[in-house]
C-alpha cells in the first residue's frame, strides 16, 4: 500500500473519530465547568471543577441518579437476554424451515416494531397499577421486549438468510451428526449475527425514554434516561446544566466500556471466516 493511500486512510479515520467523539468531548468539557463558567461561550472550561460530580455522586442529586444506574443495567440486560434467546429460535425457523405462518410472524414483528410506543404506554399504565407491576423491574422488562424482540427477529432472520445452509448438509454427508453439524458449522456462521443483534437489542432497551418516564415513579425502577429527564424538569438546582452534563458523562462511561468489550466480539465474529465464497 502506497504512502499516499495510507495517509488517506488515516485522514478518513481521524474524521470519523472526530465525528463520533466531538459531542462527547463537549459534554465532558461542560461537566467540568463551574456554574459561573457555563456561559463563557467557549468549548473548554476556564477553570476545572468537579463540583458537578460531587452533586450527583454524593450530593443532593445522588439518590435520584445512583439507583437509576442500577435499574438501567439490570432491566436492560435481562430484557436483552430474553429477547435474544427467543429470537434465535424464531429466526432459525423463519430462515430454515418450511411452515405456514412465518410471514405472519414477520408481519407481527413488524407491526409490533412500528407501533408507537406512546400508545402502548397509556393502557399499560392502567393495567400495571391494577396488577402491581407499576414501578417494578418486570413492569419495564416486559414492555422492553416489545422494543427488542421485533428488531432481533428481523435482524437475525436477515443474517441467517445469508448463511450457506448447504454446508450443514455437506458436513452430515461427511459423517457429522446433526448436532455436530449444527455445533461446528452453523453456530460459528450464525454467531456474528447473534452478537450484533444482542448489541442492538441492548442499546435499544438502554435508550428507552417513554416507557421509563411513564411506567415508573420512584428509584425502585426508574432508569437513567427518565432520571435525566427529571433533572431538567422540576429541579431543585439553580441551573441543572452542569449536573446534567456530569450525569450524562457518568452514564456514557459504562456504555463506552461495554462498546469496547462487545466490539472485540463483533470483530472476532465477523473475521472468523464466516460467510466467504
Amino acid at each position: 500500500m502506497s504512502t499516499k493511500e495510507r495517509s488517506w486512510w488515516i485522514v478518513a479515520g481521524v474524521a470519523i473519530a472526530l465525528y463520533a467523539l466531538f459531542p462527547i468531548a463537549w459534554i465532558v468539557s461542560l461537566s467540568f465547568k463551574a456554574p459561573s463558567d457555563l456561559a463563557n461561550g467557549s468549548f473548554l472550561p476556564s477553570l476545572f471543577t468537579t463540583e458537578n460530580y460531587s452533586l450527583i455522586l454524593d450530593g443532593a442529586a445522588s439518590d435520584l441518579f445512583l439507583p437509576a444506574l442500577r435499574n438501567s443495567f439490570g432491566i436492560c440486560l435481562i430484557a436483552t437476554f430474553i429477547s435474544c434467546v427467543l429470537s434465535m429460535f424464531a429466526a432459525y425457523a423463519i430462515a430454515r424451515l418450511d411452515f405456514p405462518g412465518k410471514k405472519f410472524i414477520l408481519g407481527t414483528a413488524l407491526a409490533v416494531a412500528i407501533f408507537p410506543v406512546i400508545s402502548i404506554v397509556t393502557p399499560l399504565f392502567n393495567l400495571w397499577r391494577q396488577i402491581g407491576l407499576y414501578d417494578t423491574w418486570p413492569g419495564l422488562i416486559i414492555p422492553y421486549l416489545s422494543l427488542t424482540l421485533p428488531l432481533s427477529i428481523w435482524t437475525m432472520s436477515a443474517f441467517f438468510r445469508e448463511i450457506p445452509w448447504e454446508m450443514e448438509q455437506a458436513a452430515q454427508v461427511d459423517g457429522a451428526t446433526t448436532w455436530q453439524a449444527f455445533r461446528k458449522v452453523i453456530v460459528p456462521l450464525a454467531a456474528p449475527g447473534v452478537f450484533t443483534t444482542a448489541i442492538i437489542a441492548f442499546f435499544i432497551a438502554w435508550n428507552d425514554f417513554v416507557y421509563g418516564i411513564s411506567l415508573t415513579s420512584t428509584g425502585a425502577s426508574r432508569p437513567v434516561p427518565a432520571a435525566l429527564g427529571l433533572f431538567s424538569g422540576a429541579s431543585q438546582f439553580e441551573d441543572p446544566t452542569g449536573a446534567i452534563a456530569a450525569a450524562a458523562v457518568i452514564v456514557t462511561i459504562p456504555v463506552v466500556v461495554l462498546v469496547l468489550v462487545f466490539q472485540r466480539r463483533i470483530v472476532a465474529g465477523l473475521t472468523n471466516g464466516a460467510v466467504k465464497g
Partner: protein
Amino acid sequence: MSTTTLPPAPKTEPVSKPKALISDRAKAERKLGWLLAGPALAVMLLVTAYPIAQAFYDSLFDYRLTDPDNRSFTGLSNYVVILTDQLWWTAIGVTALITVITVAVELVLGFALAMVMNKALRAIRPFLRAVILIPYAVITVVSAFAWQFAFDINTGFVNSWFAWIPGVGADTDWFGDTGTSLFVICLAEIWKTTPFISLLLLAGLAQVPEVLQEAAQVDGATWWQRMRRVTLPNMKAAIMVALLFRTLDAFRVFDSIFVMTAGANNTESVSFLAYRQTISRLEIGLGSAVSVLLFIVVVLIAFTFIKGFKVDLAQARGDS
C-alpha cells in the same frame, strides 16, 4: 443419505395441496417451525395485542383521567376533531420533514462510513468500529442535551465559533424559531443514528463475497460498476433492514424534541402530540386516537417499503 437429512423437496404448494399428500416430514417441519417461533410470537402478541386493542377502544370514547366517571362513547368523533385540527397537520409535516432529511443523510453518510470501515487499514479497523459504536450507544436523551447545550444561547459555543457565517452571532437563538430548531434536532438525530445504519451496512458489506469483487476487478470493471453490479445487489437485505427500521424509527421521533424544545415553535412531532394529549392533558380518548392514526400512517409507510423493495425475509432458502 438417510431420509432425515434429505433436503426438503423444492417449493411445493402446501396450501393448495390436499392434506393427505403432506408428507410426515413436512408435518414434522411445520411442528418444529411453530415450536421454535411460537414463544417469540406469543410474547410479542402478549405485550402488544392488549395495549393495541385498548388504544383503539379508548379512542372511541370521550375519556379524561381527570374526570373518569363522565366517560362517554362518541364513536369516531375524536378522529374528526384531530383530522380537522391544524395541530395534527403541523405535527405530520414536522415529522415527515425530520424523517426524510435524517434518513436520506444517514443512508449516504452511513454507507460511506461502512465503506471506510470495511476497507480501512487492519491496524485502525477495531478502533474505528469502537468509535462508531459510541454515538449509537449514547442515550438519545444525552445526545439531545449535548447538542442543545452546544447551540444554547447561554451555555453554547456554536454562536461564538460560527460567528463568521452570515446570520449567526452572539445573540442567535437557535431554539427561538421553527427552522433552526428543526435543524438542530435533525443534526442530533443524524449524529446519533447514522452508526445504526452503517453497522448494518457494514455487516452486509462483509458478506459480499471477496471472490466476486476480485473477479470483477480482473475483468476490468470500474469501481462504480463493481459497486452497482456486485456490492449493492449482494447486500440488498442489509440495506432493506437498515432503511426500513430507521425510517419507521425516525417517524416516531420524540426524545430529542422533548429535551430540546418540548414542542415549542411548531416543532411538535406526532408522537409528542400523542404524549401531550395522553400524559400531560390526560385526554385518553384523543391521545389514543392520535396514536391509532400515527400507527396507520406508519403501517402505510412500511407497506410501501416492503412492496417497493420486494424483499421477502421469509423466502429463506433454495432461491436467489
